């Protein structure tokens, strides 16, 4: 549903443009499109609370539809802020993000995790449209150049992230490494269980002393 007060013409136009861009992108990854077709017949309701935008996503065999209004049954409804959705979109473990994050989920979570996986694995083939416009030779060369640039950029960014993480954890010691934190949480949990067990033993002993004194 459109945000209150906004002319439906604007929201419908924005969704139409987004849907066209999404389907154009999906056409560049036939494998991803085939996987999405497996979700045909499902409807995902995405309810963003800030900014307030409600969108219904319907994957189809040939086209994926984005709707502002939908009256039928919804497979999965997800509610949260734009930041929460961005976190889910980029998550390496979407199930953990859904459980631990701020997103509110209603309905079947499995198709949503599948959808997130398909979107995350999209591998767009930019060569086809370039070849169509520029011809085989020039199109292929430009695509190769772009691929090399893209893979160099990805490698540089992942290397930068790794080095930044290492500096924060190991050199500056600003935050403990993940494994250390998990180990610490494990110890705390074990200690908590031992305290609870000790408390129940004390309780049992107290009851026994009380009954012996009577």
């Amino acid at each position, binding site marked *: 549903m459109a945000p209150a007060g906004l*002319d*439906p*013409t604007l929201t*419908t*136009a924005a969704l*139409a443009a987004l849907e066209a861009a999404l389907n154009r992108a999906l056409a560049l990854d036939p494998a991803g499109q085939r996987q999405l077709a497996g979700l045909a*017949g499902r409807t995902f309701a995405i309810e963003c609370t800030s900014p307030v935008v409600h969108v219904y996503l319907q994957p189809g065999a040939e086209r994926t539809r984005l*709707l*502002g*209004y*939908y*009256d*039928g049954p919804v497979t999965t409804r997800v509610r949260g802020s734009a930041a929460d959705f961005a976190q889910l979109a980029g998550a390496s473990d979407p199930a953990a993000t859904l459980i631990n994050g701020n997103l509110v989920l209603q309905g079947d979570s499995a198709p949503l995790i599948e959808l997130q996986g398909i979107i995350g694995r999209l591998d767009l083939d930019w060569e086809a449209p370039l070849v169509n416009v520029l011809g085989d030779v020039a199109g292929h060369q430009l695509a190769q150049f772009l691929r090399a640039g893209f893979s160099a950029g990805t490698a540089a960014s992942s290397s930068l992230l790794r080095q930044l993480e290492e500096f924060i954890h190991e050199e500056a010691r600003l935050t403990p490494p993940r494994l250390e934190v998990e180990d610490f949480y494990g110890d705390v949990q074990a200690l908590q269980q031992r305290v609870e067990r000790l408390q129940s033993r004390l309780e049992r002993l107290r009851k026994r002393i009380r009954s012996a004194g009577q």
Partner: protein
Amino acid sequence: MSDKRTTHFGYREVDEDAKAGLVANVFHSVAGRYDLMNDLMSGGIHRIWKRFTIELSAVRTGQSVLDIAGGTGDLAAKFADIVGPTGRVVLADINESMLNVGRDKLLDHGYQGNLEFVQADAQYLPFPDDSFDCVSIAFGLRNVTDKALALRSMLRVLKPGGRLLVLEFSKPVNPLLEKAYDGYSFRVLPFMGRLVAGDSDSYQYLAESIRMHPDQDTLLGMLEDAGFVNCEYHNLTGGVVALHRGFKA
């Protein structure tokens, strides 16, 4: 004094029997350039209005849809995609020229199997009671001679729980927008009609018929009077167009 009932044809008062023929002449004249003129006149926004109509129709696979005054088949094509091979879409138009243009266009685009074409008057729909899950009429109701009779006919052919969608020009909610819209309708539209379709009179009629069409609340009352329930309307583009929706109980 004549005892014949009259109705409006644009700003003119004409005999009720004559209106259908006059409207038919307008659409015979514009049929060939109808799509092009729609795009030019609305700046392409009519596609957004129709997309919103499709969303509110909530039509699903396997359902049956009647698109009245379907003209060149914009809505019917979208409905045919949604209902799929197990569904049924009927494109109905009273005007033979418009129906021919729509049929040729849709067949050329590969639509067949779930699509039928029927020349029919919206006031006397030639379908059994309770036939359709959804009935739509986009930019057609204002040309109908007896709108109340047409609405009752649409209610009759809808299945219980089915919905009617009326997409039609309406009254802008902002007075400034209304002034600008008036200027556009009575100066620019006939000029464009003369330039592109070689027919300024038909586009002058279109502008006049829009002004004579009931406003949002009046049409809402007409839907309720015809027997529709849970009626509502959505203003689009500041009320230049309104989408009315009603359900059959």
